[in-house]
């Protein structure tokens, strides 16, 4: 009975979310809508990122490289043949790609699948040895993807990047995918596979001794993350409509790392809360980069100060508040209702 009630509550809150989005898309200004879109895409990225880092415990630095793949693949597919012909002025595009054209949803999914395949190829040699190298291999991949997008001009248009990508991403697309990825990843975490992932995180040797195929489980986590990061990259490209090799820097990965650490490694609830805090907070923190007026003093703004604050924040949280907001706990309707009841009795 509780189970039925909880699913109803979940469905009701999703409906409420979309009612809010419907209201927002009609009444909010462009800036607020952009922030809402950013929150959705970052939520999707952070939840997938937490699956491999927090739930499975394999430190990885892939998001900037993987969103780049998703963004490039899906935009190349939604651009029309005429647009591509006009844009590739240095070197014409290689053949089958230059006339290929897909609708938005199909392009996003293909982008996700290509990213998942790349993730599989990258992780295969790493997971056969020890997971330690995953971080350095994915960090290196983020640099290599930039080398590739700058040099493979007949595929990526080189440093000029892609322009005039259709602005298809709206609140429905971004939040639809964010909610979908959250549901899929939560189902995965709560399944037998998810328990195996947590076992690997807590003690890999013990997990293997219990008969868990650690290579397969780590691979499932990583490839799932890769798929959703690719789709999120596609959504991002169709939100900002112009992409170039310099867009997908390590700063993106660093932001996501802060989000999952603030929220609590392994807690999806924490990740969702932290995404809203960090995306919103970094908008507010823009004042740090500009001159500040305190009483009658003027503190000159230092561009780049935000990055310093972010890295100090990350180190301080790791040293003194490693649990983050939620630790490894998750939100549950039972817990929430008990909490409300308890408050009433007081």
């Amino acid at each position, binding site marked *: 009975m509780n189970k039925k009630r909880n699913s109803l509550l979940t469905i009701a809150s999703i409906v409420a979310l979309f009612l809010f989005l419907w209201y927002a898309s009609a009444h909010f200004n462009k800036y607020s809508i952009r922030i809402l879109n950013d929150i959705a895409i970052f939520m999707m990225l952070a939840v997938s990122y937490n699956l491999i880092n927090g739930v499975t415990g394999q430190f990885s630095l892939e998001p900037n490289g993987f969103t780049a793949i998703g963004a490039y693949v899906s935009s190349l597919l939604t651009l029309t043949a005429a647009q591509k012909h006009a844009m590739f002025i240095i070197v014409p595009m290689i053949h089958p790609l230059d006339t290929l054209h897909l609708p938005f949803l199909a392009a996003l999914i293909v982008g996700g699948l290509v990213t998942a395949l790349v993730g599989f190829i990258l992780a295969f040699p790493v997971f056969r040895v020890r997971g330690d190298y995953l971080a350095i291999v994915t960090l290196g991949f983020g640099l290599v993807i930039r080398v590739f997008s700058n040099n493979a001009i007949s595929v990526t248009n080189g440093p000029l990047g892609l322009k005039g990508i259709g602005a298809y991403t709206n609140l429905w697309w971004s939040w639809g995918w964010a909610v979908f990825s959250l549901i899929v990843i939560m189902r995965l975490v709560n399944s037998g596979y998810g328990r195996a992932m947590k076992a690997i995180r807590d003690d*890999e040797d013990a997990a293997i001794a219990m008969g868990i195929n650690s290579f397969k489980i780590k691979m499932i986590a990583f490839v799932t993350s890769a798929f959703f990061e690719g789709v999120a990259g596609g959504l991002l490209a169709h939100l900002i409509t112009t992409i170039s090799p310099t867009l997908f820097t390590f700063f993106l990965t660093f932001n996501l790392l802060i989000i999952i650490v603030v929220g609590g490694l392994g807690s999806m609830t924490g990740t969702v809360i932290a995404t809203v805090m960090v995306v919103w907070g970094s908008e507010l923190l823009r004042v740090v980069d500009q001159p500040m007026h305190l009483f009658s003093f003027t503190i000159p703004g*230092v561009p*780049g100060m935000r990055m*310093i604050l972010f890295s100090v924040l990350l*180190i301080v949280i790791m040293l003194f508040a490693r649990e983050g907001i939620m630790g490894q706990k998750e939100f549950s309707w039972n817990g929430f209702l008990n909490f409300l009841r308890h408050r009433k009795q007081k």
Partner: protein
Amino acid sequence: MNFSEVIQQLVNGISLGSLYGLVAIGYTMVYGVLRLINFAHGDIMMVGTYMAFFGVSAFLLPWWASFIFAMVLAALLGVVIDKVAYKPLRSASRISSLITAIGVSFLLENLFLVLFGGVPKAFPIPKLFAGSLNIGGVILPFVSIFAPVLGIVFLLILLQLLHHTKYGMAMRALSLDIETTRIMGVNVDAVISLVFAIGSALAAAGGILWSLKYPSINPLMGILPGLKAFAAAVLGGIGDVTGAAIGGFIIGVSEILIVAIFPELAGYKDAFAFLLLILVLLFKPTGIMGKDLGGRF
């Protein structure tokens, strides 16, 4: 390509490789002892180079004094980073110290960007290193001779330290089992500090030689050499100092040769070390000199 061109490319490759090797030694020593990828290592190299730059241009020290000054400061920085950011997390899960390592790396890069700007600075080259020898059409810049010689001298000193002193014995013991070494009465924290000091000083030496070769320094200069040096450490067999040096030479020489043989691949030069890293993991994960560091970690 005729004979003298081949020799020329080899000379270039060896001098580049000795720089990678110097940086790789720090990676491999820290990983050998703590099983930690010190992401800040490339940035320590950058800081060391900046210190040498300021030693010469701001404090007007003679070049050798400022190079020593830079190596000492880099060693101090390495020790401080370990004490502040890694030591409190020794007993925590392994992912925690990796996350702080990446935090420290990002902090150093952005701190130097804010303090000194992103515009590359010209590294002053002492007169001694500015010239070059011409032997039968092969041009030997003094830096290209000096770098491998210095690299090998440092390696020999380090091997002497590792195998013929008590500190070296303690380091080798640590890489097998920290807790047992502690029980044996070794001051584990002091030895770990020494490991960070040596690795960071060598990184600074590598960075200084790097900027004598490519005299333009900026706060992000440590990222790519750091990554390639890590690939060199894995190629040589992580945890093994000689292996790191050999791995560095292999990566340096092959990077130069590939560009010399296939000039159209020059744009992809920086991706090559990465490809090599993947191939090593795929076919010989323990590297050339490597021993299995006790299974999976």
